[in-house]
C-alpha cells in the first residue's frame, strides 16, 4: 500500500459503484421523465384527451405543457426533497466523474475503434454536460436572468412562452438566442448520449453483460433507448424554440385565468 491513503482510495469500490449507480438512478430516470414532459410541447394535444377541442396542435402542446408544469409544482409530493436528491446526485456524479475522467489519456487517433471513440465522447459529453446543466438550472430554476439573452424570467404559469422566449432571446430569434438554442441542442444531445453509453458501460461494470455477444445485444438496447430519448430531446428543444411566445402566452392565459400577472420582459 502506498504511504498516503486518500478518502477516494479508502472507499474506492463504493464510490466508483455509487458513481455508476447515480447516473442511472436517479439521474437517468429523471432524464427520461424530464424529456417526456418537455417533448409534450409537440405531442401535448394528445395528452389533453379531448379537453379544449378548439386548440390547434401547437396550442395543445403549450396547454398540456402548462398543465404538466402546474401538476409537478402543485401535486408532486415533497418536490423539494426530489430536487435536493437530484442536485446532490448530479453534483456527486459530476465531481467524481471529472476526477475519474482526468485519469484518462485519450488515444483515439492511434486506436480509432468505436468503443474508444465512445470512451472519449463519454468524457467530453460529461464536461460539456456539466456546463449545460449548470446554465440550464441557473437560468430557468434559480432565475439568473442576466445569463438569458433578452432577460426573460421563466415562470410556472407561463412555462411555454417564457421558455420559448428564453431560447429565442426574446419574442423573435436574436443572434444570442440562436447561440442559446444551439447550446441547448448540443447539450441535451450529448447528455442523452452520455446516459445511453453510460448504461452500456454500467452493464459491464456491474457484470451484467459478460460475453461479447451479451455486450453487443445490450448495446443495441442502449442504442434504441438512446435514439428514442434523442428524438424526445430534439422534439423538446426544437419544439420550444420554434414556438411563438405570443401564441403560447395566449393559451396560458386561457389555462390560468387567475394567474397573478403576465410575466415581465424587461
Amino acid at each position, binding site marked *: 500500500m*502506498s504511504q498516503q491513503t486518500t478518502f477516494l*482510495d479508502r472507499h474506492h469500490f463504493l464510490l466508483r459503484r455509487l458513481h455508476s449507480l447515480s447516473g442511472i438512478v436517479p439521474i437517468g430516470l429523471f432524464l427520461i421523465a424530464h424529456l417526456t414532459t418537455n417533448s409534450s410541447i409537440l405531442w401535448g394535444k394528445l395528452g389533453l384527451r379531448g379537453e379544449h377541442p378548439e386548440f390547434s396542435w401547437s396550442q395543445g402542446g403549450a396547454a398540456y405543457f402548462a398543465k404538466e408544469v402546474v401538476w409537478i409544482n402543485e401535486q408532486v409530493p415533497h418536490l423539494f426533497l426530489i430536487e435536493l436528491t437530484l442536485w446532490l446526485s448530479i453534483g456527486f456524479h459530476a465531481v467524481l466523474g471529472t476526477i475519474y475522467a482526468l*485519469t484518462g*489519456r485519450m488515444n483515439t487517433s*492511434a486506436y480509432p475503434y468505436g*468503443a*474508444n471513440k465512445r470512451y472519449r465522447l463519454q468524457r467530453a459529453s460529461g464536461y460539456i454536460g456539466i456546463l449545460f446543466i449548470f446554465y440550464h438550472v441557473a437560468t430557468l430554476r434559480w432565475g439568473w436572468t442576466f445569463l438569458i439573452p433578452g432577460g426573460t424570467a421563466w415562470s410556472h404559469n407561463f412555462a411555454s412562452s417564457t421558455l420559448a422566449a428564453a431560447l429565442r432571446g426574446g419574442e423573435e430569434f436574436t443572434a444570442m438566442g440562436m447561440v442559446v438554442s444551439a447550446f441547448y441542442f448540443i447539450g441535451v444531445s450529448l447528455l442523452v448520449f452520455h446516459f445511453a453509453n453510460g448504461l452500456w458501460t454500467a452493464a*459491464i461494470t456491474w457484470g451484467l453483460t459478460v*460475453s461479447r455477444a451479451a455486450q453487443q445485444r445490450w448495446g443495441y438496447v442502449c442504442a434504441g433507448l438512446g435514439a428514442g430519448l434523442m428524438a424526445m430531446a430534439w422534439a423538446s428543444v426544437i419544439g420550444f424554440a420554434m414556438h411563438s411566445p405570443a401564441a403560447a402566452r395566449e393559451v396560458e392565459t386561457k389555462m390560468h385565468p387567475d394567474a397573478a400577472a403576465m410575466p415581465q420582459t424587461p
Partner: protein
Amino acid sequence: MEKTAAANRTVRLRIKRCDGPGKPSRWEEFRVPIEPGSNVISCLQAVAANPVTVEGTQTTPVVWDSGCLEEVCGACTMVINGKVRQSCSCLIDDYVTGNDDVITLEPMSRFPVVRDLWVDRARMFHNLKRIKAWVPLDGTYNLGPGPREDAATAERRYVLSTCMTCGCCLEACPQFDLEPDPATWDTSFVGAQVFGQAQLFNDHATSRQHAGERLDVLMGPGGINDCGNAQNCVQVCPKHIPLTQAIGAIGRAATIHAFVRFFRG
C-alpha cells in the same frame, strides 16, 4: 510476391532512440535493404550490423528486446507506425509497398525505457504477484490429486493462458499510464492483462481458493472499477484473448463479492 519483386529495395526505419533511463529521446533514420519476408527484427539486425544513419552519421546500434521470434514471448513488443504490436511478426511488406518508404518504430510509452526500443515491463509481473496469479500447491505433505477440470472450463481457460505479458493491451489503454515509481504501482491501474490472468486463476478448480483475495485486490484503487471500457485491449491483443469478457466476469464477481462481504462480513 510481385509487389516485392523489385531488386535492391530498401525501407527507411525512423526510430525513436534513448540512451538510457531518464535520458532525452531523439529520432534517427536508417536505410535498410529488404527482401521478401523481411520483418522489423531482421531490419533491426541490419541496423545493428551497420549503424549508420541516412545522413551518413556513424551511431550506436539500436537496442531492442526479443526472445522467441515467433510471437509467443512478448519481449519484442513496440509501437510500429503508432500502433503497438510484436515486431517479430511484423512483416515489412504488410506496411509498405513502395521503395524507400518509412516505417516508424517507438518503444512502448507506458513502460519505462531501458534503452532505445527496450522497455522494462516489471510492473506487469509485479501486478501478477499482487493477484497471486498461480495455482497454490506448495505444502509439507501430499495434497493428493486435485479436482477434475471439465472440458468446457479448460477450453475457456486455455485462451486466457496464452497471455504472454507483452503489454499491448496496456499500451493501447487510455486508463493505463506510465508509472516510473514502483511505489505507486499498488494503487495505479493494473489493466486488462491482470483481469485476464485473475479470471484464468479464479476459474481454476484449485486456484479458485484465492479468488476472494484476488477480488479484494482488484476492488481497490487501480482495480476493476478504474476500467473505462474503451475496449482497445481486446482489439490489440495479439493472442485474441477475450479481455473485455474477462473484465465483465471480474466485474460480476466483484459485485457479488461486495454484497457477500457486506451482508456476511
